[in-house]
């Protein structure tokens, strides 16, 4: 459902993605790996049309979104549910209103129904006690979870996009979030998780794309990743070996 054809992107003079092509099908569970500043977040932003490529084409469900206007992109964006790297919660709203945002925007639910739905979503991510907290009263992990709850309120996305959903969390919470991600994609919804933690990538994905210097140096399944002899990939993997 996502096709990148020879996509290049740069911030002013700084070339971030260099002629990248890949296809991601419906229901696939993909991890995008790579070093900090490698352009992982940039790829997600290109997918939802927040950024425009310098050259190349991006096709979502057969629609070329490269030249779409902002209001034409709305349709495309509704197919995704994205959790940003820093959560990007609305800091003028409390947790409940953040989660309720899409419900208020797109449904005619009554106040009571919204309240119940918010409780349900917050229970899924395990922060139901923080319903009336303001966003600056949340810890990093709670912030991340609320952001996930908020993105769940988007009705029936075809694909979840998670930017560093587990980075900076303790191992227990990271595991919990991975389980949650798997749980959410159980009925055929796909997801793309961007991360530099190989452990978490292995927990949730069955296809791995490794970025380096603006190019894809590896694209394959678990066995290809684990047996790779690309030096950067091996450094990422050594983290795993040290543990086991």
């Amino acid at each position, binding site marked *: 459902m996502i096709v990148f054809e020879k996509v290049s992107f740069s911030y002013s003079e700084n070339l971030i993605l260099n002629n990248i092509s890949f296809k991601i099908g419906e229901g696939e569970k993909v991890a995008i790996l790579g070093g900090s500043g490698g352009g992982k977040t940039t790829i997600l*932003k290109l997918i*939802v049309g*927040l950024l425009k490529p310098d050259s190349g084409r991006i096709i979502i469900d057969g629609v070329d979104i490269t030249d779409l206007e902002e209001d034409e992109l709305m349709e495309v964006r509704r197919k995704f549910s994205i959790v*940003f790297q820093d959560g990007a*919660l609305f*800091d*003028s709203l409390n947790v409940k209103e953040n989660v309720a*945002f*899409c419900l208020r925007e797109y449904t005619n639910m009554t106040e009571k129904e919204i309240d119940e739905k918010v409780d349900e979503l917050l229970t899924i991510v395990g922060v139901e006690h923080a319903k009336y907290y303001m966003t600056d009263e949340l810890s990093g992990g709670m912030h991340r979870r609320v952001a996930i709850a908020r993105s769940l309120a988007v009705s029936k996305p075809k694909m979840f996009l998670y930017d560093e959903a587990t980075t900076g969390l303790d191992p227990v919470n990271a595991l919990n979030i991975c389980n949650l991600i798997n749980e959410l994609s159980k009925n055929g919804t796909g997801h793309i998780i961007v991360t530099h933690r190989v452990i978490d990538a292995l927990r949730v994905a069955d296809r791995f794309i490794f970025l380096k210097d603006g190019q894809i140096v590896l694209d394959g399944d678990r066995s290809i990743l684990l047996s790779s002899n690309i030096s950067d990939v091996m450094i990422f993997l050594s983290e795993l070996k040290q543990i086991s």
Partner: protein
Amino acid sequence: MSIKIKKLLSDLQDYYILSFKGLIGIFRKPFYSKDVLDQMDYAGAGSFLIVMIVSLFIGMALSLQLSAELASLGLKMYTGKVVGISIIREVGPVTAALVYCGRVGAGMASELGSMIIGHQVDSLRVFGVDPIKKLVTPRILSSIVMLPALTIIGDAVALLGGYYIAVFVSHQSGYVYWSSIRDILDFENVFSGSIKPFMFGFLISSISCYMGLTTKGGAKGLRKSTTNAVVFSIIMIIISDFMLTRILLYLLGFSL
């Protein structure tokens, strides 16, 4: 050099597009009435007291200056007229706009700027919400409603301040003061005084929103956009005040 000019032109074009879209958003669905009310409360009700205090003292100072000057010419009885005209046509609208710009304009730029930095605007966009309609339109609408209201209140308070000085300090007749104020409250003066705050409200809110939404970088970028919002708004208030005055005098048939 030519790159700079190009950049300036494209920035200017972006500003026009943003302010145009923000303005026509007032007439197009969806309407974010809660955001509009929030903004009105913050911008209007919140600035009420400052505008009153500033206007009171400006009215008093103006009246002091003019009574002293006019007394030496033996024309004390004109104090009300001159104070009234200056306040209603010129000083009132500009004062309220400058106060509004410092308080509300700066606030808009820094709020929207930090929403940009925290990717909250990106969040809105991926949720399919147009940031211009959700963020810019309510701010423009509330400004073109609230600034005229603030200006009227400010004018009234300034005239009262002028009255206090004229009667209790300069020992003039209160009746003469008020009747000359009543004389100058004719169509020409009221019209030229009340058209300005609409313009100023639009300029302040659109410039501040533009600066906020084009914030780049972290705290430093935020400082820059907040400063720019205030600086450009002030410059535009003063310049457009002059131009509007020129146009209005012409339209209303005053000869210079």
